[in-house]
Each structure stands twice: as structure tokens, then as C-alpha cells.
């Protein structure tokens, strides 16, 4: 097949058209991705944990929010609950969290030594726990059940043993009144 100048011109025109179409399609995919990210972030207020709240990790147990008596679940004035926990090599304190269903939960975690992380299996609760900062995650559990909560960042040779439990119980069974006065948990 001889390539005449005419077919050459047409081939070039065709290739430019294909390039343009590909560009539009791929640009469309990227724009769609951005749109989904922006929509979910704004509409569902779905943000990663980003509170940027410094905390002196050397003095956690002496005073303030993360003393031993404060660890666990507390009822807030607005009916929501706050769960406070400390990550240490190689355990979480408390190592069993008690949480009511259908209640806004604010999880506040700090580390007393190195970097840890936590995720609750079967949920989107997932944060790094960087010493020097408070990690805050907000969520609502809709179903009662038990979940595992491993440390997901290497924190030393005992890392594989650092698993806690999360008991989500029906909100009718949750001791909201008691949790106003003192922190509750299912840790033994």
C-alpha cells in the first residue's frame, strides 16, 4: 500500500483526534476523582484525623486529661461520648473499650513512648498515634458487636502482641449515667 501525501495527512489528523479524545477522557477521570473526594469530604464531613493538638507525652500520667482515672468512655453534656486511651509498648490502656451504638463517639488517643497506630477491624476508624500529639477520630457505630483493635505501626519487638478489643453495645444497655461520673471500660 503506497502512502500518498493525502493518506499521510489524514493519518495525522486521525491521530490528533484520538490524542484529544484520550486527553478529554483521562482529564474527565481525574476531575471525577477530585469531585468525589471534595463531595465526600464536605457532605459527609469525612476528614482524616487532623486535630494538630500537641501534648507532653512525658507527663501524661501526672495530670490532665489522660491520667489513669480518665481513661475509658465518658458521657458528655450533649449526650455524645468521649473515649480516652493511651498507647504504650505493648498495650493500650484500657485494652477493652466499651462504646454505645448510635451515639457520636470521639476517640482521643495518645502515646506515652514511640509511634503507635490503631484501627478497628470492620470499621473506618484508623489513625496514627504519634507521641507529642493527640489523635482524635470521630465516628458513630450503628451495630452492636465486638471488634479487634490492633496497633498497626511497628513499635518494637512486642508489636505483634498489641491488640485491644472494642465492645459496641446497644445504647439502651450503656451506663450513660455512670459514665457521667467516671470513665467506664470493659478492661479487666
Amino acid at each position, binding site marked *: 500500500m503506497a502512502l500518498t501525501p493525502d493518506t499521510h495527512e489524514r493519518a495525522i489528523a486521525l491521530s490528533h483526534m484520538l490524542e484529544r479524545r484520550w486527553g478529554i477522557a483521562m482529564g474527565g477521570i481525574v476531575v471525577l476523582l477530585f469531585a468525589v473526594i471534595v463531595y465526600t469530604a464536605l457532605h459527609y464531613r469525612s*476528614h482524616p484525623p487532623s486535630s494538630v493538638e500537641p501534648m507532653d*507525652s512525658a507527663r501524661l500520667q501526672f495530670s490532665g486529661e489522660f491520667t489513669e482515672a480518665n481513661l475509658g468512655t465518658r458521657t458528655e453534656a450533649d449526650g455524645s461520648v468521649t473515649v480516652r486511651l493511651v498507647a504504650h509498648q505493648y498495650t493500650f490502656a484500657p485494652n477493652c473499650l466499651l462504646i454505645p451504638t448510635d451515639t457520636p463517639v470521639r476517640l482521643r488517643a495518645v502515646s506515652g513512648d514511640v509511634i503507635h497506630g490503631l484501627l478497628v477491624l470492620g470499621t473506618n476508624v484508623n489513625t496514627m498515634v504519634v*507521641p*507529642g500529639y493527640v489523635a482524635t477520630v470521630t465516628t458513630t457505630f450503628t451495630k452492636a458487636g465486638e471488634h479487634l483493635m490492633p496497633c498497626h505501626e511497628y513499635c518494637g519487638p512486642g508489636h505483634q502482641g498489641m491488640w485491644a478489643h472494642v465492645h459496641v453495645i446497644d445504647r439502651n444497655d450503656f451506663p450513660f449515667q455512670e459514665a457521667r461520673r467516671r470513665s467506664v471500660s470493659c478492661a479487666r
Partner: protein
Amino acid sequence: MHDSRRLVLAHLWVAFGAMAIAAVLGVWQMYQRSPLAAWLSNPELYYRAVTAHGTVLAYVFPTLFAMGFGYAVATSSLDQPLGSLRRWAWTGFALLLLGAVVAAITIATGHASVLYTFYPPMTAHPAYYVGVVLVVVGSWVWCALMVIAFARFKRAHPGEKVPLAMYGTVANALLWAWTSIGAAAEVLLIVLPASLGLNPVLDAGLSRVLFSWTLHAIVYFWLLPAYVAFYTLLPAAAGGRLYSDRMGRLVFALFLVFSMPIGIHHLFADPQVGSGFKFLHAIFTGMVVIPTLLTVFTITASLEIAGRLRGGGGLFGWIVALPWRRPMMLAGGLAFVMLAFGGAGGLINMSYALNSSVHNTQWVTAHFHLIFGGSAVIMYFAVAYELWPRLTGRPLLSPRLAWWQLMLWFVGMMVLSMPWHVTGIMGQPRRMAYFDYGHPALAQMAPLVIVSFIGALILLVSVALLLIVLWRTHRQPRSELVVPPLGYALAVDRDRPVPRALNGLGVWATMMVLLTVVNYAYPIALYFTAQGSEVRAQRADGGN
């Protein structure tokens, strides 16, 4: 390849040798994680192995490959000897080797079981960091030599186009020189002083931000040699033309600009970075998808030219007509498949909110094993098969075995990583010595982990085949056959002049620096307004 044959061979032999050791460790790690093994009585051994596996495969192997391939490209595509630069090239190699040995000894003796990501306050023995720094300094010598060779060519050939292979290689050298500064600063200013006990108080958040400066763009440093092969060697091996030389240049330029200002997407789940900069980095991560999507078009079009020249017709007939028996051709096709899966997984990791469902799980491991271990490394193998006859003066022994090696690599990588995606969604953390599969929530993961272990075994067979092919080729008697020089693809638009900006990298490197400053200056500056977030360093090996 003029005067660089021994230099390139030395780099590539050490690279593949180190990779083989790391692969054995990888298989052992996968076995220990699986329900097949009894729980380790000393789990520290697992983390020691992960540290070695990662240090070799993140810092030593790809760096040596990029350097060796870079010297091959600089001498063959520019048709210009290294000359007096050769002495410096050997110096860089020696520094890298020394660093790798120092780091390896420190890891092997159990003084650096901190994994290969530098996340204080946990620190290793200082010798580990000194070793890694030497590796990086050795690679900086290479960066400088690539820029010098590029400048020499432009001076000697005013008005001429710099060959695309060299353009991409120098883009990668500039990218690496700039992106390695983040981790280098972290190690030299924070981690090493802490490890030595000189300044035991540090900000763990600042360290992570500095490490993220390096952490993402390093992946593009691993990937760009594969892209150089996609654009310049693959179309030639397929028997076709590069569809657009200009598009190739634009893609390398865009990688330079967009690889850097995106690293904070690794810190989405970090409490010390605000949502604004996380969001900004998510958007820029979306931008870095563009050069990859342009590449998919250009390379597919180049291969279509080859397929049609070989008589393939119809909508898909040209794909069948491609010379799939050739190692480079097969590797290119398989690399694209793995790039597609790995890339799709990556889009989920980088999605600001969606990341929460997979952050730090085995999903992430699957993503980067597919992108780097799969897509990039299979191209490293194919490049080695192209280079070996040119470096040794002996024909490849045998292309059939090489074909099987590449195929097994692909199969192994898929069998390894697909179950990882599933266990990741189930919430299985990465980097853990063993699991209690007796727990009902973990029991469902057990069979999948065994499948991954089988994938790891397949990969090990592939590594063995690689070494056999390279060794046998190197060891056979020198043949009478004249090996043709390395064939770079001719571009369809080779007579079309390129804009000045696409024959140099100055504009793009400047944009890279400016965008990095815009996206990192504020997050880093925050830490200097002292907030009482300092913590005490802790030596993992009990020192200080």
C-alpha cells in the same frame, strides 16, 4: 557502550545479587506471617528481616539499577564516552557499596530492627544511619555525573535534540537529588544526633513530615528507569516506532514537577498535620496520575504501530501480532497490567477520606509491591536482558528461559498481592511478626495468607531463573557473533523540532523546587514555633 561496560556490569550484578538475598528474606517473612509457621520465639528476627528486605529493596537495589542503567544510557544514547568522569562513577559505586555493607552488618547483628522507614522516637544504632547516608551520597555522585554528561552533549551538539532516553534519565537524576534531601535532612539533623545521644529530644511529627518529602517521590525514582524503557526500548523491541517523542519529554517533565509536592498523602492518618495540607497533597497526587495516563496512550499507540507493521489487523488483531516471545515485549505488557492494578489501589490510598479504610494495612503492601516490585522491577529484568549481550559481548542464554522468568515474576506477584488486598480490607495490619488465626475475625484471613506465601515461592523461583540466565550468558565463551548496539526506538515525529523547554530541564526543575516550597514550607515551619510536642528518643537496640 564505550568505556562503561565494566562499570554498568558491576552496578547491575550487585543490584541483582542484593535483590536475591532480600527476596529470600521476603519469602521467610511471608511464611512467618502465615498460619503454616509456629509463632516465632524471638519475633525481633521478623522485624530484623523486614528491615533488611526494605533497606535493600528501597535504597540499595533500585538505586544501583538506576545508576547502572543511567551510565549505559549516557554512553550509548549520547554516543559519548564517560572519559574522566569514570573515576567519579567508581567512587560513587564504592561509597554506595561501603554504606550498604555497614548498614547490612548493623541490621544482621540486630542493632537496627526499626524497619527501613525512619520514624523516631525509635532509633537504631548510628551505624545503620551512617550506612544509609553513604548509599545516598554515592547516588548523588551519579546525579551530578548525569547532569554533566547531559551538559557536555548539549555543548558539543548545539541545536540538536537530546535523545529521549537521556532526557528521562537526567529528569530522574534531578528528581532523586531533590527528593532525597528530605530524608537526608531528617537523618542528619534529627535521627542520627538522637541515636548518638547528642540531642535525645525530638519532634516525631516533624520527622515524619520530612520523611514524607522523600517517601513518595522515591517511588518515581524507582519507576522512571522503567518509563525510560517503555518509551525507548519497548517500541524498538516490538518492531515499531515511538508514537511521540515530544509526549515522552512532556511526561518526564511532568513527573519532575508533580512527584514532589504530594508526600503528605502518606500522613493522612497523622494527628500532627492539618486537614488543609492533607487535602492539597491529595489534589496534587491526582495530578501525578496524568503523566502515567499519557504514557498509557503513547506506548499503546507505539505498540499498535508495531502490531500493524507486522500485519496485525482489526481492532485487537495488532495485539496478537506483537512479538510476545521477546522478553522486552512480554515484560512491557505485563508491566502495564501490574501498573493498572497497583495504580487503581494507589488511587484509593491517596483518596483523602477513603484512605482510612486501608491505611497501614496489608492493602498498602499490595499496592507498592505491584507498582515497584511488579511494574518497575519486571522492566529492570527486561532491560538487563537487553543490556547483557551488549555488556558481555555474548548473546543471551536463553531468551526462552528469560521469557519464563518474566512470566513467573508476573504470576508470583499477582498471587502474592491479590490476597493482600483482601486481607487489607479486612483490616490485617502490615509489618506484624505473626497473627492469632484462632480468633474468628482473623481466621478468615488464614487461607488468603497461605496463597500469598505460594506467590512468594513463585517469585523466588523467578529470581533463581534470573540469576541463572544472567550468569550463564556472562560465563559462556565469547561468540563470533557481533552483537548489535542497543536499539532505541525511532520516533514518528523525529524530524519535528522540540521546544527549547523540552530539550532541557531547567524550567521543570525550577517548578519542582517552587511547588515543593509551596506545599512543604508551611507544614515544616509550624514545628519551629515550638509547641511542647517534643519526645525522648528510644534506642531500639538498648543503646544510650
